[in-house]
C-alpha cells in the first residue's frame, strides 16, 4: 500500500493508483477533461494538474502514480491560474458557440469546467477559422469546431470497442478528428456503436436523435438491461415526459463496462413499428377493437374445451425477449396447465438445445464472459460476432492489440474474417472435421492443411484460450460436433462460451421452451411475441392455424393473421428478470409508462391463465434450476 497526503488529508491506496484516483477516494474533486474512468489515463488536457512537494513542475494527476509520502495540493493560486490558462487556450483554439450548442447548460464538461473556475469570458478570441463538420453518419454528427482534442473518442473506439476507426491527423492546432484515413464518418469502418458520442465531453460528437431533446437535468435515467441479445448489457434508459430520449451504456456495468452496440443503442430509437394499444377481436373476418374482458372471454371460449386434449390442443410459442417472469407463467399455463405438447419459443431451441442436452450429462461446461475479456487467444466458431452479440465481439477485438490472436471458423462469410489471424472456411456441415484436425494438431500430430497448422501454432502459445461458439455450430449439426468441441477445449485448456440467442434465450432453455414446432392438428396457436420481430418462418408455419391468439406490442403480419390480439408492453415499459449468456441474473426496470389498456407480458399471461382457470406460481427463479445449466447461474 501507498500512503500519501492530499490537501492535508492522508489516504492509503494500492500501488499503481494514480493521484487523481487517490484524491477521488478522499472525495477531493480535481477538474479534468480528457480523463474518463473507463479508458486509460492519457494526460492531454492538463486540467487535472496538482502540485507535489519536491517536484519541480506541476503534474497531471491522472497519469501520475501515487508515491509513498507524497504531499499533494490540488487547489493553489498557481494551479487555478494554470487551469484558467488551459481553459482559455481550449476555448480560443476552436469555435465554441455556447448559446446554440445542444450540450450547453449542464451537459458540456468543458463549459462546466469553465464555470467551476468562475470564468466569465475568455481572454483570447478564436482565429475564426472554419473546421469541418461531418454529417454523413446516420446516428451522429462530428463537429470539429467543438473538439478539444482530448481523444476520449479515439481511445474509446480503440480501447473499448477495438474498432480503431477514429484518429487524429495533422499536428498542433491543425489536429483534426478523422475517420479511417480521412473518409466521411458515414462511409468509414465505423460500426455505429455510439461509444464515442457517449464519452465526448463537449458537443463535438452529437447524437442526432436526442440532440435538443433535453439536458441531463431535464431527463430521467433508469438503470436497466439491454434486451437486444443474450449479452445483456447494462444500460441507462434516458426518458423525458414518458418519451424515450436516448439509451446510454452503463460504465459501471458488470457485463459491458459501458459499451453498447448499434442494436442496443440505436435500434430501439429508430423503431417505426405501429404500436397496439387495445385488444383486437376478429369479427366477421375483420379485426375490431375490443375490451380485455371480451378478448379474454373469446380466448377462454376457444381454448377451455382444448384443455387436456394434448396433441390437439394449443401450440404455444413465446419470444425469448420476454422477461423470465412472463416465460415462467407461459410455461406453467400451457405446459402443466393446459397440457399442450408443443410449448416452445420462437427460437425453438436452435441456439441452446444441443448445449442444454449435453449439460444434463456432463454438467456445466461453459465459462463467464470475463474469460473472454482476459483471454490470450480467441477462437470463434458458428457465430459472427461482428453482427450478433456484438459486445462480446468488442471484447475479442479490443485485446488484439495486445497480441491476442483471433481465429475464425465459419463456412460462411464472417465479419471478423478481415481482422482474423486465421479464418478457416470448412465446408458447410464439416465443422467437426476442422475441430478434429485442430485437436490432432494440438496433440502434436502433423496436419496437412497449412491454415489449420497456422491456427494450431497460434493457439499452442496461449495459456487461457477462449472458444466462442454459436448457433451456426450446434443448430443443425449432430450432437457429436459439440462433444468434439468440448473435447478440443479440454485438450487445449480453453474456456467455452456459448452465445445463445436473444435476451432470455438461456431462460427459455432452462424452462425447456426449446423444442421445434410444427402444426399438427392443434386447434389453436398462442404466440406471445411481445415486442419481438415476427419472422417469415414463423408466419409460414402458423398460416394454417385454425385460431391464432397474438400477444404483441406491435402490429405485424402475425397480428393481421390473428383472431385475438392482446396488446402488451415493450421492453422499456416492463420490469423483469433476464439471465444472460453467462448465467448472470439481471433485472430490467421499466423506464416508460405504457398506454392505458396495454398490459405487461406477465400480466397478460396471468389474465389468460385466470380466464382459463389455470393456477400459476411466482417461481420463475426456482424454475431456472429445474434443469442442469450449461453455465453456472448467479
Amino acid at each position, binding site marked *: 500500500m501507498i500512503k500519501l497526503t492530499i490537501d492535508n488529508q492522508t489516504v492509503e491506496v494500492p500501488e499503481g493508483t494514480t493521484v487523481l484516483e487517490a484524491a477521488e477516494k478522499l472525495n477531493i474533486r480535481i477538474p479534468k477533461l480528457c480523463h474518463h474512468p473507463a479508458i486509460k489515463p492519457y494526460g492531454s488536457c492538463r486540467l487535472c494538474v496538482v502540485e507535489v512537494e519536491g517536484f519541480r513542475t506541476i503534474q497531471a494527476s491522472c497519469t501520475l502514480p501515487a508515491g509513498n509520502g507524497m504531499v499533494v495540493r490540488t487547489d493553489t493560486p498557481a494551479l487555478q491560474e494554470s487551469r484558467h490558462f488551459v481553459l482559455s487556450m481550449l476555448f480560443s483554439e476552436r469555435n465554441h458557440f455556447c*448559446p446554440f450548442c445542444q450540450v450547453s447548460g449542464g451537459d458540456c464538461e468543458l463549459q462546466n469546467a469553465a464555470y467551476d473556475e468562475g470564468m466569465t469570458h475568455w481572454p483570447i478570441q478564436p482565429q475564426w477559422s472554419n473546421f469541418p463538420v461531418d454529417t454523413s453518419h446516420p446516428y451522429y454528427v462530428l463537429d470539429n469546431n467543438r473538439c478539444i482534442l482530448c481523444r476520449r473518442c479515439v481511445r474509446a473506439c480503440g480501447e473499448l470497442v477495438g474498432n480503431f476507426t477514429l484518429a487524429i491527423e495533422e499536428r498542433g492546432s491543425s489536429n483534426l478528428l478523422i475517420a479511417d484515413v480521412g473518409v466521411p464518418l458515414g462511409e468509414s469502418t465505423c460500426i455505429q456503436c455510439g461509444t464515442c458520442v457517449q464519452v465526448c465531453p463537449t458537443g463535438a460528437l452529437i447524437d442526432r436523435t436526442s440532440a435538443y431533446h433535453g439536458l441531463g437535468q431535464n431527463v430521467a435515467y433508469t438503470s436497466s438491461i439491454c434486451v437486444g441479445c443474450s449479452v445483456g448489457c447494462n444500460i441507462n434508459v434516458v426518458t423525458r415526459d414518458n418519451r424515450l430520449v436516448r439509451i446510454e451504456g452503463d460504465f459501471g456495468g458488470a457485463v459491458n463496462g459501458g459499451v453498447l452496440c448499434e442494436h442496443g443503442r440505436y435500434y430501439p430509437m429508430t423503431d417505426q413499428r405501429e404500436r397496439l394499444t387495445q385488444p383486437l377481436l376478429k369479427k366477421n373476418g375483420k379485426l375490431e377493437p375490443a375490451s380485455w374482458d371480451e378478448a379474454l372471454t373469446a380466448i377462454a371460449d376457444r381454448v377451455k374445451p382444448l384443455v387436456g386434449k394434448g396433441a390437439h390442443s394449443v401450440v404455444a410459442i413465446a419470444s425469448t425477449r420476454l422477461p423470465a417472469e412472463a416465460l415462467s407463467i407461459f410455461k406453467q399455463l400451457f405446459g402443466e396447465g393446459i397440457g399442450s405438447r408443443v410449448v416452445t419459443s420462437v427460437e425453438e431451441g436452435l441456439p441452446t438445445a444441443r448445449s442444454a442436452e449435453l449439460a444434463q450429462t456432463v454438467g456445466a461446461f461453459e465459462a463467464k464472459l470475463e474469460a473472454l475479456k482476459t483471454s490470450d487467444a480467441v477462437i470463434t466458431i458458428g457465430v459472427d460476432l461482428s453482427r450478433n452479440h456484438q459486445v462480446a465481439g468488442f471484447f475479442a477485438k479490443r485485446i488484439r492489440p495486445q497480441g491476442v490472436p483471433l481465429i475464425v471458423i465459419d463456412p460462411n462469410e464472417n465479419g471478423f474474417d478481415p481482422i482474423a489471424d486465421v479464418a478457416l472456411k470448412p465446408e458447410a456441415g464439416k465443422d467437426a472435421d476442422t475441430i478434429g484436425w485442430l485437436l490432432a494438431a494440438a496433440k502434436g500430430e502433423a496436419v496437412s492443411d497449412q491454415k489449420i497448422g497456422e491456427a494450431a501454432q497460434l493457439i499452442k502459445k496461449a495459456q487461457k484460450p477462449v472458444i466462442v461458439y454459436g448457433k451456426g455450430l450446434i443448430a443443425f449439426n449432430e450432437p457429436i460436433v459439440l462433444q468434439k468441441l468440448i473435447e478440443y477445449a479440454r485438450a487445449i485448456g480453453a474456456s467455452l462460451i456459448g452465445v445463445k440467442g436473444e435476451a432470455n434465450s438461456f431462460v427459455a432453455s432452462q424452462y425447456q421452451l426449446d423444442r421445434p414446432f410444427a402444426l399438427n392438428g392443434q386447434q389453436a396457436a398462442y404466440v406471445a411475441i411481445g415486442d419481438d420481430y415476427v419472422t417469415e418462418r414463423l408466419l409460414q408455419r402458423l398460416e394454417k392455424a385454425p385460431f391464432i391468439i397474438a400477444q404483441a406490442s406491435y402490429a405485424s403480419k402475425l397480428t393481421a393473421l390473428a383472431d385475438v390480439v392482446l396488446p402488451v408492453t415493450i421492453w422499456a415499459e416492463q420490469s423483469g428478470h433476464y439471465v444472460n449468456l453467462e448465467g448472470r441474473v439481471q433485472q430490467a426496470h421499466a423506464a416508460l409508462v405504457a398506454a392505458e389498456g396495454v398490459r405487461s407480458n406477465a400480466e397478460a399471461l396471468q389474465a389468460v391463465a385466470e380466464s382459463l382457470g389455470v393456477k400459476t406460481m411466482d417461481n420463475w427463479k426456482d424454475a431456472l434450476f429445474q434443469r442442469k445449466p450449461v453455465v453456472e447461474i448467479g
Partner: protein
Amino acid sequence: MSKPKIASDWMAGCAGCHMSLLDMDERIIKIAELADLRATPITDLKEPDESGVDVGVLEGGINNTANEEVAHRMRQRSKILVALGDCAVFGGVPALRNFCGIQEALQRAYVEAESVDESGKIPSDPELATMTKVRALSEVVPVDVFVPGCPPEADVIYYVLSELAQGRTPELKDELLHWH
C-alpha cells in the same frame, strides 16, 4: 451623496439582453431607487451624459464603425464598463459571419436570400457605417465586468446592476454564471 448614474446602449446584438433587463419586472423600480437610470436605447435619452456616468452597459458585439463609436463613447464616459450578454462578451451569433467574411455575408443576405427578388443589391449608401469583422467588446475597449448569457437572465442582470449601484463589484458564479 447623489445616486450612481447608469447608462446603456446596444450594438451588434438582437436587443434580447435589454429585453431580459426588462424581464426583471418590478425590480427595475428597485434599481431606479438605487441608481439614476440615464440614457438607454429604450428610453428618450439616447447618449450617455457627456459629464460621464458611473456604470456603462453595452449589449452586442462590434461589427461596424458605428458600433466602434458607441463603444469608445461609452468607455470614455463610464467609470465601469459592463459587457452585457454573449455578443458583447464573446462576439456571439453575429460573429458567425467572421467565418465567411463580409462580402459573402452581404451577398447572401441582400442578393441570394430566398426572400429577395432580382432587384436585390448590396446597400452602398455612403452614409452607412463601414462593416468590420465582428469583435467582442473587450477587443475594442477595456471591459471591467463581463456578464455572459444569451441572454443573461433577469436575475443575473438585477444582481449585477444592484451590486454596481451599491458600489460593489458583482461576482458571477454558480447559478448566476452561464454562457447560454
